[in-house]
């Protein structure tokens, strides 16, 4: 953990979401960048020193899930915090994202002001702790699906 501001890439094809999330991260003292699809995100992440990425799952061209798979294949990006966004919140969807390596899953609509807190908390964890948390959430989500729960 460093004292430099966290650098977060916001990836969504909807410019409104990019603006709102980006501004709330800026307000929390983070540096932000934007990408409108998965390929743009991969290009930007390949260059530059990013701490985290907020990734919408449903996007034209390279969607979020595909981008997530590709960036998890890049060993250089192993420590990148990834939060996925989607419009549906079925456990199956959350499980799929977390299995590939997302650390958190947010369903739209979400509270924009809460996103910075979630990101900061994940960044402050060591990569090991982060992975441990991801696996425990994955277990919970799997349990929820086993119980047939899609909602609370």
């Amino acid at each position: 953990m460093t004292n430099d501001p966290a650098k977060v890439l916001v990836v969504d094809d909807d410019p409104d979401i990019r603006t709102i999330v980006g501004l709330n991260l800026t307000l929390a003292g983070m540096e932000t960048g934007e990408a409108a699809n998965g390929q743009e995100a991969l290009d930007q992440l390949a260059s530059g020193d990013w701490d985290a990425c907020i990734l919408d799952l449903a996007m034209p061209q390279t969607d979020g899930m595909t981008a997530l798979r590709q960036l998890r294949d890049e060993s250089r990006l192993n420590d990148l915090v990834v939060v996925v966004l989607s419009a549906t919140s079925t456990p199956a969807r959350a499980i799929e994202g977390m299995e590939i390596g997302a650390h958190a899953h947010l369903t739209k609509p979400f509270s924009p002001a809460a996103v910075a807190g979630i990101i900061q908390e994940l960044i402050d964890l060591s990569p090991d702790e982060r992975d441990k948390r991801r696996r425990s959430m994955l277990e919970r989500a799997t349990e929820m699906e086993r119980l047939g729960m899609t909602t609370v």
Partner: protein
Amino acid sequence: MARQIRILLLGGDAALWVGLSSALGSRSSQIVVPKDVSLGDLAATARNIDVVCVVTNHADSDPCAPLRLVRQAGLERRTVVIASGADQRTAAEALGMGIGAYIVRGSTPDRLAMAITQVAEGGAFYDAPAASVLHGAEDAQANGSMMSAARALASALELKDTYTGGHAERVTHLAIRLAHSALLEDAMPSEALEAGFLLHDVGKIGIPESILNKPDSLSDTERRVLNTHPILGERIVAPLGFPECVRNVIRHHHERWDGDGYPDKLKGEEIPGAARLFSIADSIDAMTSIRPYRMPVTFEEAVSEVVLHAGKQFDPDLALLAQEVFLNAPIHLPVL
């Protein structure tokens, strides 16, 4: 940084606990589930608890009994009611008690997490369907009770924003008067248009209270975050099936005739009529209201100010019409 939220869960079952911890998975939380709770216990634990979640069951003979307990312990503003089904009686009693949040069981985990986070931070959260349940309107459009749903949402906002007391109702009254004289094609007076006026600032529900209620002037970033409220508002009402004029007012009421407004920098007649008309009423009410940072002006001065900014901030025709409607002054008609 988000700190740990301590939650006391009353009622409910294992499935709900799993759902709750999963919903809050990315926020660190501590969930206490007592076996049996008396008023004494509740008052004693209150100091160590941020949010009380009460699960009510409409099949119980007295579903609100646990709510009265939290109220006696003075915890109602910190309480999230998770109600089973569309139980109007529970909703009415709970909201009447002034509880912090009301959410229907069956909402997504994220909505529940949002409600809990809001309440933990001293805000309020009413599930839109739950708010309409209170007013006996489950479907805003189907049974013509759009206004009830709009009022419920608007009052949820008033709880959060301390500076705007009564603003929504006053400005709606002014804007409807103007709409009756203007008779614009895309802003004909109707219940829907009125709902749009009432809900213009509903997006502020998504703006942090530290910004909304800040007594000093805002930093550049804070200002830009505040200025996202029209976009957030459009998204909040989108699933409720309101007609286009409602969404137009919410999204575009801060656009300016000269194109210097937000969020889309629309210019002149690109701005929907309902929003052009509303922004005049909005400015008049803002200028005549008491705010901590300046003295209010008289109604006449406010209207003159609008006329002064005709063609810059405001639609010039509508600004002159406002002068006639509100001050009963004749319009100077151009010679054709």
